[in-house]
Each structure stands twice: as C-alpha cells, then as structure tokens.
C-alpha cells in the first residue's frame, strides 16, 4: 500500500536520511523504532508530503505522492510529534477546525467529533480550553484531530511522549482498536514496549538508516542473540556442575548458580530441568533474561535506545 524508496535528505550539510526504504501492507501496523535524531520525524514528514526529499520517492497505492498531494493528504491522517493544537480553543473548537480542513460535511463532522471525544474520554471536558488540559489530555486530542476524516492510513509520530500511564493506556486501547478495524498505521517510537506490543513489523532506524526490519520474532531469531537464564541450585557439586556445563556449551558456573546462554528458552528450558533432576540436583530458582528490542538495538548499534 505504501512504498518508500531510497529517501535521502540533508539539512545544512547534515545527512538526516541516508537512503531509507520500506514497504507497508494494507492494514499493517508498522513501527519505526529508533532513538532521538534517528530520522523518524523527517521520514514521516516526507511521507506526509510536507517535506521534499533530496532524492527517493513515496508511493501510496502505487501513485507518487508528489503527483497528487491533495489526494494523498485526504487519504492520510498525521499525528505530529508536537502537540499541534490551538491552546485558546476548546477541544471541541480544535476538532471542529481541524476536521473542517478535510472536507467533512458539517453535520457529519459534529457527530464524529462527539464520538471521538467519547472514545478518548474527554466528552465532559470538551468546552474547556486546551491550554488548561494536562499533557495526556492534550495528546489524546492531538491524536483525535488526525482521525476525524476517517483516513485509511495514519502516521503517528511518537504520539505518547511524556504522558501519564492512564492516558497512555487509553491511547493504546484506541490505537489497538483502530488497528483491528483495519487501519494502516505507521507508528514511530523510541519506546521498545510500544513496538513490541503493537507492531506487525518493525523497522529499526538509526542514524538515517533502517538497520533491521521484520516481525518481532524475525528480529529476535535473526539477531542470533542468546537469551540468558540463571538457575540457582540448592547445592551443586563440582562433578554435577561439570556435567551440566559440558552439555550446554557457553554456560558458566558461579558457586551454586549456572548461567545458560540459549537461543530458544521455550525449547531448551525443559531439557535443563530434566537433566538437573537426572543428576540429582534441586532447583531453587530460575531467572529468565529474554531478548527484547532493547537488547537487539544494543547489539546492533552498541547504543541504548533511550538516552
């Protein structure tokens, strides 16, 4: 549905995008995961045709968006990273204005705004000025404003930055609902929990490049990262320890604890438990340290996702 081909963008000599390509299928939830400054917003801006790339192109339904900007814009909703609302307007006035720009008939728009306010739990506060809202409430309206024209495609640029857990959960629920209803969503974030929770596929972006892409499972297996489990035994003789370690190369002993490096915990953990009981040692505790996007990112770039 959306094809992004080799986007490049340089700001005053600084190369922000160094050839970004990816495809998004209809109804897919695609996550762009990367740290601050990776180029997420620049990519979204080009995809929303408010910024021209130095080279490369974006096709929506096979059509270049630079060809018919208006059609592409009518088809997409964009949630900007900033809270782009008029503080002196109420939530209702903001939504009325932003919705009116997308040619929704007035009566229909009013109905949709009421639904949207209910959906985001702000109906009772609809006539309060947005500048009096909490960060989380503003974020909710910021998202709602992008949805009033019922777009087929939504780009969300870090839509949950800096808000309370309650608002965050509400937003997550709405986003999941939209996904279930078949909306195509491109979601940028630097929270790996979000990428793991929602995304059908994830593109890991760093330094203007997509360095990995795939489903969470694909990323995990491709990363060849071992997962670590730490088994604490009641009592451990040297011979017993030696037997276990020779069976699982890469494992190491520290007093009566053994750390195993595994590629698939689910498959290999039962074997460890069985082997332990065969040689007559009692397991006190098992600690699992799973591979996640954070460790994958660390492995790929040597950096933390969050600074």
């Amino acid at each position, binding site marked *: 549905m959306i094809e992004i081909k080799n986007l490049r963008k340089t700001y005053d000599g600084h190369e922000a995008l160094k050839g970004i390509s990816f495809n998004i299928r209809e109804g897919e939830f695609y996550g762009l995961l990367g740290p601050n400054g990776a180029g997420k*917003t*620049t990519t979204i*801006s*080009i995809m*929303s045709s*408010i*910024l021209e790339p130095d080279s490369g192109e974006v096709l929506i339904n096979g059509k270049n968006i630079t060809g018919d*900007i*208006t*059609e592409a*814009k*009518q088809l*997409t909703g*964009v949630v*900007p*990273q*900033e*809270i*782009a*609302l*008029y*503080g*002196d*307007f109420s939530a209702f*006035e903001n939504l009325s*204005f*932003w919705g*009116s*720009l*997308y*040619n929704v008939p007035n009566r229909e728009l009013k109905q949709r705004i009421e639904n949207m306010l209910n959906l985001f739990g702000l109906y009772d506060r609809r006539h309060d000025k947005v500048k009096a809202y909490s960060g989380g409430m503003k974020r909710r309206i910021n998202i709602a*404003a*992008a949805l009033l024209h019922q777009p087929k495609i939504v780009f969300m640029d870090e839509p949950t930055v800096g808000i309370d857990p309650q608002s965050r959960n509400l937003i997550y629920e709405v986003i999941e609902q939209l996904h279930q209803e078949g909306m195509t969503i491109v979601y940028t974030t630097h929270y790996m929990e979000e990428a793991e929770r929602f995304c059908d596929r994830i593109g890991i972006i760093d330094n203007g490049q997509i360095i990995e892409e795939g489903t969470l499972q694909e990323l995990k297996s491709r990363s060849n990262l071992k997962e670590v489990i730490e088994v604490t035994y009641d009592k451990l003789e040297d011979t017993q320890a030696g037997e276990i370690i020779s069976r699982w190369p890469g494992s190491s002993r520290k007093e009566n604890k053994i750390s195993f490096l595994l590629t698939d915990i689910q498959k290999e953990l039962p074997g460890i438990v069985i082997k332990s009981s065969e040689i007559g040692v009692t397991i006190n505790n098992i600690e699992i340290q799973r591979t996640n996007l954070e460790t994958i990112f660390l492995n790929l770039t040597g950096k933390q996702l969050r600074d």
Partner: protein
Amino acid sequence: MLKLPIKDLKLFFKDRPSVLVTFAVPIALITLFAFAFGGAGQGNKENKISMQIADLDNTDLSAKAIAVFDTLKNIRTNHVSYEAAVEAIKKGKENSVLIIHKGFADSLETGSELPLELQYDEAREIEVGLLQQSLIPTVFRLPFSLGNPKAVMAGRFEKLTENSSPEVKENILHQSDNLFESLSQGIAENSGTTDPAGAFLGNEIKMTKLVAAKKDSSLGLIQAVSGTAVMMLLFSVVGIGMGLLEEKQEGTLKRLLYAPMNPMKILFGKMISANIISIFQLAVMFLFAALVFGLELKNHSTGLLITIIATAFACSAFGVFLASFAKSRQQVQGLSTLIILVMSAIGGSMIPIFFMPAFMQKLAVISVNYWSIQGFYDVLWRELPVFSTTFLSRILVLVLIGVVLNFLAVIMFKKNILKMN
C-alpha cells in the same frame, strides 16, 4: 476558503491581551495626543516656523521692525512681495504672511494702533497659532523699542480714558511720567510671553484667513487620530503576522500543511484576517474620535472608508511581510518595533509633518504612515472629493505598497516558513 481567517479571528478575540493592545492602547494614545495637539501644540521650540513678511510701508521704521522679527528665534522669516506671499500660501508652500501696511511708521510715531496683519492658511492653524504666540509680545514692544514711547503712552492713555470723567483724565495725565517709567521698566525686565505691560498697551495683529478651512473641526484631533491609529495599526498588524511564526513554533503550521489544501492558503488566510482586524481597528479609532471628541465624519464616510481600507491593506501587508521573512518571533519583535518607530517618527504619526524641516518632509514619503495620514487629511480636513487626483494618488501609493509587500511575503513564505519538517 474562509476557514483559516475565521479561525484566526476567533483566536484573536479569545486573546484578551492582544485585543487590549489593538483597541485600548491606541484609544489611550489618541486621547493623549488629542489633548496635546488640541492645546495648540505648545512645546515645539526646536523647529522654526516659517513666516513671510511683506513690507508695504517701506520706511526706515518698517525695515527696523522687520530686523526685529528676523531675530525671533522660533521664526524663520522670508521677505517677499505681497503677491508672491499670497501665491505661496495658496499653493500651500507657506502658512502665512505678516503684512506691514502703509502708515506703520506714522502709527509708531503717534502711538496709534499698528497696521499689522497676518494673513494665513486656516488649514495650518497649529503653526499659525505658534507664530502668533511668538509674534505678539514682540509687536507689543515695537512702540517702545522703535517708536516714540511717550507719544505712544499718551495716545494709549487717551484712548483708555476716553469714557472716563475729566478728574480721572486729569489724574492720569498728572501721573503719566511716573507711569511711563515703571511701564518701560517692566517691559525691559519682562521678556516672557505673558507681558502685563504689553497686555495693558493692547497692541494687536489683525488676523485674516487667506485660505479658509471649510469647517472648524480641529486639525489637532485629525492629526491625533490618524497619526496614532496608523502607528498602532502597524504594531497590531505585526502581532497578527507573527501569528504565522507562532504557528510554526507551536507546530500547528505543520498540521495545517498536512491538510489537503494549497499551503498558500495559510498565507492568504493570514492576510485576510489581518485586513479584517485592521479595518475594524481603524474604524473603531475614528468612531471613538467622533463620539468622544466630536470628530466630524458624517459627510466623509466614503473617502474615510476608502482610506481606511487602503491603509489596512498596506499595513497588513507590512505585518505579514515582516513575519514571512523573519526566522523567529523574537527577531520580528525587535526589528518591527524599530521599523515602526522610525516610520512613525518620520511619517508624521508622532510629530505632525508640517512641524518638520523641509528635508524631513521629503523623507516622510518612504513611510506608510505618511501616505495614510495625508489620505486622512485629504478626506477630513482638506475635504477633497473622492475623485481628486491628490487623494487618489495617496490611495494608489498605499495600494502599491500593499501589493509589493504582499508579493514579497508570498515569495518569502515559500522560501522560509514552508521550510520545515
């Protein structure tokens, strides 16, 4: 597509401080200036006011009198023939001529009323008022400095005691030497404008309107309203234009750009709302002056409306232009204040143009203020018809300023404002 300007207008009226700046502050300033100029413009001592002198007496004494006028520090005299003087006034080049009529020398000798006359252009009553203030004390003293003081005294006393009883006349005549001493001493000591001795002597200049203004509405008031209104309009219009930069900084501009419409509509929307607010602001200023100070608008509504619209157009373009080429709000703030103050100073918003030296008056044409204020003068003071070339030429200049600045704003908007991610 009026959605954008309507949104801007709604936001504008929700923003109390900016409504206050747009309406309350200019009203306060207009009131201040109206009183200042209404009081015949005291306190403008640095600038000399020009005055023509025509000597019809042609005597030694009249020449001496002219020499005295030449030394006055507030007046720049200009010796010309009467005909040339009248011509210059009618053309609006000069404001007045002091005529020394035949018999001046005789009157000095005999102490009778001096045949002095100031013919003037009523449209310039503020200047002429200042002239009068400077002239009168000098004229009072002329009989003492040039004439035969004793004869003058005697003549005056005779006139003053015309209707008195013979005893009083006798009494005064008896004391006349004494009186003369003390009076001339008083005159010598007193060089201020309030001259009791002079007042007692009661010499006057006959004032003749050579070019009469067609009504008695106050020039000072028109100056106060139009000068202040244009200056304050420039300030508020820069504020509206800065809304563009604010939208950029807040991110709402980005969201506007996401929408399926031509991005230029964002600029056009700002221009439209700036024009509407400007017209509204100017209209309120003139209505205020009409209601509170009795400025006569009734018969000038068409011309006034044309001038208001042309002024609003030029000023709005200025505001949008400034905002479109600046990088940040802070930058516009400093720059615009400087530009507006300079334009207002040279364009006649603060000090009336006719108080300025000639080269400043020439410089004034580079400001929006000048054309607009002159337009208001044309309509409200000179009462020129709407189709007169003088008036239309000012409107044309305002429209041209607006067109050029709007055009530049479009170019800069594409170049600067739209450059974002």
